[in-house]
């Protein structure tokens, strides 16, 4: 007997000696692979090489079947075949009573009962659960369909999908369906299909879908439970929480050309750097063109490389800190500023501040499923799916950061006025800034109000340029450029209201008010911009 068999055999033997209902195993799932073959799944903690008799009732007469497994390839799944010409029929409810002889063979060794597990109900009624998108990075919405009965791929071409708007109104959806072939009777693959909704997808975050035409191998038409709604995974509620973020905005005013602005953030983790840190190459830009009379746009581009890592802290309300030290190149759209800085950032995580609609719904689902939290005392519901859990419409979250920016310009440089011949030479200087930051968002239904403030403090004065329109000795208007020192507090803040356009909220209309000044040139900004936001 190998060690691999010995350990579970001992575990099972001990559980039997303790005279408790722990063997042969706890059945947690089943799949109907064909009209004559069924797979059942044990909680995989204790299973190895079971072989026992069972009785299947619910048909014309009770049938004795031999359940055996697991087959090495399909760990923790066991199989049984119906004897002779018997076949499972559709729309029935069968009952499988395990180890009816009171004995089982585990790892080649006979074991005696009693085995007190309740009988397993095997339903041949066609039903299918629809899982939330497992890949929402794609524009198309992709769902996994799970059926306990293997699906018939030949019927996929006849399938139709609808969004149920009301009992009397259904909208057809463009979609593709790929039924996964379950090669070699693999129960993990049986009953699975990938459903891709093309185009804009359902119109609501909370919707019902109806499917017709797709059949299972017993001939039953696969349907979704009409009572169950489909909840879509939401987009990150704020720029701080997003890995990829793009905001395109427009501003206009009397007597001015329309202006545009782009606010971009891209922060992928590219590789593990060891000790829990990951290499990251963040790029951010907040730039614009054609400023409207009296309203300056932000003008900051940074690109860097560094590492980022989360350090969990077990200190009550303070739950952890993410450190992101990096080298960064900071410039403006014209390239007149070229600063090389060390950017050290620490994001602080506090208990209770992560409560977006998405987070609250997920916690509510887990609490209901496990009978805990506000559902303590209620019966746990292990079969609950996230779609059926109690949902909320209001959420909030807040992020706190402490940071520092230290460095200097690469070279002394000459800055030309935006028009005319004037220029000014800006000598190099030391950059030493403290950068605390708070980013908060409040969600209600499809509306999101975000607020972020960066009360930056310049420890050493920085050389920046300013421009004013002046009259020369001939009375002609010209642009005068000069250098000043920026120091002390240079706060910057944004407040934004956005309306989600798509069901998942990756696309939104937004209006943003920006106030304050940003490096590298610390021009004063006081503007309202309206546009579209894309975040993932």
């Amino acid at each position, binding site marked *: 007997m190998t060690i691999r068999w010995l*350990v579970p055999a001992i575990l099972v033997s001990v559980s039997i000696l303790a005279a408790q209902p722990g063997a042969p195993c706890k059945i*947690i799932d089943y799949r109907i692979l064909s009209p004559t073959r069924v797979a059942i799944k044990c*909680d*995989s*903690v204790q299973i190895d090489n079971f072989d026992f008799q069972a009785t299947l009732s619910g048909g014309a007469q009770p049938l004795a079947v031999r359940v055996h497994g697991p087959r090495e390839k399909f760990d923790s799944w066991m199989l049984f075949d119906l004897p002779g010409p018997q076949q499972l029929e559709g729309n029935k409810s069968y009952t499988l009573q395990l180890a009816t002889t009171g004995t089982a063979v585990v790892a080649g060794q006979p074991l005696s009962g009693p085995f007190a597990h309740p009988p397993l109900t095997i339903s041949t009624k066609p039903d299918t659960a629809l899982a939330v*998108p*497992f*890949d*929402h*990075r794609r524009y198309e919405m992709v769902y996994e369909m799970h059926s306990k009965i293997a699906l018939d791929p030949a019927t996929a071409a006849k399938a139709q999908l609808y969004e149920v708007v009301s009992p009397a109104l259904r909208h057809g959806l463009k979609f593709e369906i790929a039924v996964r072939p379950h090669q070699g009777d693999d129960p993990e693959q049986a009953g699975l299909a990938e459903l891709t909704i093309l185009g804009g997808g359902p119109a609501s975050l909370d919707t019902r879908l109806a499917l017709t035409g797709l059949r299972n191998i017993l001939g039953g038409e696969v349907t979704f439970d009409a009572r169950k709604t489909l909840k879509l*995974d939401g987009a990150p509620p704020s720029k701080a*929480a997003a890995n990829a973020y793009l905001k395109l905005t427009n501003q206009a005013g009397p007597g001015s050309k329309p202006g545009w602005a782009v606010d971009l953030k891209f922060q992928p*983790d590219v*590789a*593990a750097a*060891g*000790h*829990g840190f*990951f290499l990251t190459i963040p790029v951010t830009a907040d730039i614009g063109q054609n400023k409207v009379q009296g309203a300056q746009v932000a003008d900051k581009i940074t690109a860097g490389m560094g590492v980022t*890592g*989360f*350090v*969990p802290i*077990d200190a009550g*309300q303070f*739950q*952890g800190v*993410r450190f992101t030290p990096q080298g960064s190149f900071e410039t403006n759209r014209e390239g007149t500023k070229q600063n090389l800085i060390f950017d050290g950032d620490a994001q602080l*995580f*506090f*208990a*209770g*501040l*992560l*409560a977006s609609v998405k*987070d609250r719904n*997920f*916690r509510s689902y*887990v*609490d209901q*499923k*496990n009978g*805990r939290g506000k559902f303590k005392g209620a019966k746990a519901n292990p079969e609950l799916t996230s779609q059926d859990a109690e949902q909320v419409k209001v959420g909030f979250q807040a992020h706190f950061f402490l940071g520092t920016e230290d460095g200097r310009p690469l070279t002394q440089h000459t800055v030309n006025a935006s028009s005319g011949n004037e220029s000014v030479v800006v000598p190099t200087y030391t950059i030493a800034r403290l950068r605390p930051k708070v980013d908060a968002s409040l969600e209600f239904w499809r509306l999101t109000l975000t607020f972020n403030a960066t009360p930056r403090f310049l420890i050493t004065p920085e050389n920046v340029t300013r421009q004013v329109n002046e009259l020369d000795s001939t009375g002609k208007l010209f642009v005068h450029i000069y250098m000043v020192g920026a120091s002390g507090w240079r706060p910057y803040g944004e407040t934004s209201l956005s309306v989600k356009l798509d069901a998942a909220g990756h696309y939104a209309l937004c209006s943003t008010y920006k106030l304050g000044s940003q490096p590298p040139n610390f021009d004063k900004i006081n503007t309202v911009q309206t546009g579209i936001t894309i975040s993932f």
Partner: protein
Amino acid sequence: MSIQSRVVQVINAWCRGVTMNLTEPLEEIWARTDHTGVPFQKEAVESLVAALHDEFQKPETRTIILVADDFKPNGNLNTVDDLVQAVNESRA
């Protein structure tokens, strides 16, 4: 100790709770164990990967090359069982 036991031990220390069964999704374990300030993706996942990395430096060693995107929702790793399998399949 088996790979499975070691992974379960790492998960229990990571969530400061107890793994109920191997089919429980890691994200549900994280939510169940009262982490209301740290998101599963990617802070919690990164700390889990770091803890696995530390554990499997010891014999019987495994080379853990997982990143946050290997876990749900962007990747395929969802349950305790999935993680055990991923570690099992890692290079020794």
